[in-house]
């Protein structure tokens, strides 16, 4: 106890900040999810689990949930494959490698909103530069494009592409860090045994990357699941609920409909999903083992 009292001045402020801005809102969110809160913010009493029933009973709930799964699986899957290739390249020596590594960082540092805005502009009918390029190389026949940003399906697909693009840097750098720990001896031994390049990669290097890959994938799953800005920009102006994920739906409840009780209920569901992923992370990665 005396030790704890001595530690308090050092870690107290950090604990207080986490308690006030992370833990307390979690509690408040759970509480609000069981209340009836008017659009002007007045608490009209407890309603048990009625808000959850309303959220799950919403006719688009299951499609939205399904789309969220597609969103996470496709984005994280494509990011992983792309990052494995990118990291393999960046781990090899070639002139200008440092420059390429720096370029890969750019989407990571940049505002996701701003990166998405460029793509949104590029897909505008007639004057969008991506449409124009696709016409110039002969992939599409009219600069009208396909009204990519007007239809939920195509806008969602482009949003996934943007999500992969902005997720690549972190995943690539994590796998690259993992590659640095692969001992050169194991690779050389495989070569001497006559294994081809791809064979060496898949049966010697890849298994040793398991740790780095699981870290990258789990953190990525959380980031992609929680992602709002890309869909907000790409599909936010499309009426209806045909391009929504759980996260964009929470913000629609909060902002468009001003139903903070329903938003809280859906947030609680999303929060529980996040906690499950965190639990998997702590079990698989064991981040506290050597501290």
């Amino acid at each position: 106890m005396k030790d704890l009292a001595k530690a308090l001045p050092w870690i107290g402020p950090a604990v207080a900040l986490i308690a006030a801005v992370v833990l307390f809102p979690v509690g408040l969110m759970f509480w609000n999810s069981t209340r009836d809160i008017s659009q002007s913010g007045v608490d009209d009493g407890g309603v048990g689990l009625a808000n959850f029933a309303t959220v799950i009973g919403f006719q688009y709930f299951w499609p939205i949930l399904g789309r969220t799964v597609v969103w996470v699986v496709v984005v994280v899957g494509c990011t992983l494959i792309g990052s494995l290739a990118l990291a393999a390249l960046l781990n090899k020596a070639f002139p200008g490698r440092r420059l390429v590594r720096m370029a890969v960082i750019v989407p990571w540092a940049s505002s996701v909103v701003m990166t998405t805005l460029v793509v949104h502009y590029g897909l505008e009918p007639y004057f969008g530069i991506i449409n124009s390029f696709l016409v110039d190389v002969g992939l599409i026949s009219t600069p009208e494009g396909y009204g990519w940003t007007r239809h939920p399906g195509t806008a969602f697909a482009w949003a996934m592409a943007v999500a992969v693009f902005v997720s690549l840097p972190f995943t690539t750098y994590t796998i690259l860090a993992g590659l640095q720990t692969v001992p050169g001896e194991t690779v050389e031994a495989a070569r001497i045994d006559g294994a081809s390049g791809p064979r060496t990669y898949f049966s010697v290097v890849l298994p040793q990357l398991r740790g780095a890959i699981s870290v990258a994938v789990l953190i990525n799953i959380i980031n992609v699941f929680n992602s709002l800005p890309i869909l907000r920009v790409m599909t936010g102006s499309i009426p209806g609920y045909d391009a929504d994920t759980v996260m964009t739906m929470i913000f629609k409840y909060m902002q468009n409909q001003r139903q903070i009780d329903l938003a809280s209920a859906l947030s609680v569901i999303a929060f529980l999903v996040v906690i499950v992923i965190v639990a998997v992370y702590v079990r698989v990665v064991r981040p506290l083992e050597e501290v």
Partner: protein
Amino acid sequence: MTAITDSGTTPRKATRPPSDSRQRVRKYTSDQVPLGSLLLRLLAGLVVLVVFLLPYLIMFFGSVKTKAEIRSVDPTYFPTEWHWDNYVTMWSTPETPLAQNLISTLVISLCATLLVLAVALPASYYTARFRFPGRLFFLFLVIVTQMVQPAVLTSGLFRQFIALGILDTWAAMILVNAAFNLSFAVWIMHSFFAGIPKEVDEAAQLDGAGTFAVLTKINLPLVWPGIVTAVVFTFVASWNEFAASLVLLTTAGNQPLSVALTKFVGQYETSWHYVFGVSVVAIVPVVILFMIIEKRLVGGLVAGSVK
């Protein structure tokens, strides 16, 4: 940790004879590279370079076009006339008070960074140096905080800040950004403090230095790279924050650039050249900052789990 910080070896070193006596993990590259595969790598590197820079090049070229040119039906890849004056006129566009948005972004990010530093520095030092009951629980809490993001808690934060009377204030977003970036700062600085041999501290203590003096005079110079990394990361993350700002800041002038720029989408005639001008101004500084801490980014994010 060492493996991560060792990542930036230049290709020149790879061609040195293997008799290089320094002890370090040998990299997964062969020393003799045939010219053909070297050219192939160069080509692949060039493709990667172009793909990753392309959106930002489009942004830059768009930012100096006239409104007529950027909205013309047959779009140009490069500007026909370079209108640098866009960078002056864009601040007084009617959609949103961009100058105020820039100030908000700056104030929120700077204050959040200072707050994180003030809170995380002592915590990371103490947890790296001393054992105490609840230490592991504290570090566990920090990891969980890193994985829970503000987006999923916004509905709670919204009600909480109304009750506290700080909804739609800079203070609200300073607190949110500080709290959610605390974990990165604690982890990265923790790993640096943990890397300093305890004997260094003990020697100083024998000379009569107190805990605080040991921290400021002996440790700080050694953990400087960790502090820089924590500061830069927090600043950049706060600079780009979107989800919480969208809900917690309701007055146009209080909002950061990330939120302000979304207002241009769906306008009858979007001033894309201004959107891109502001984006360039907002992106260039943080990209440079990120390049400074490039080699240490992963260490703070994965909490030392890639060894």
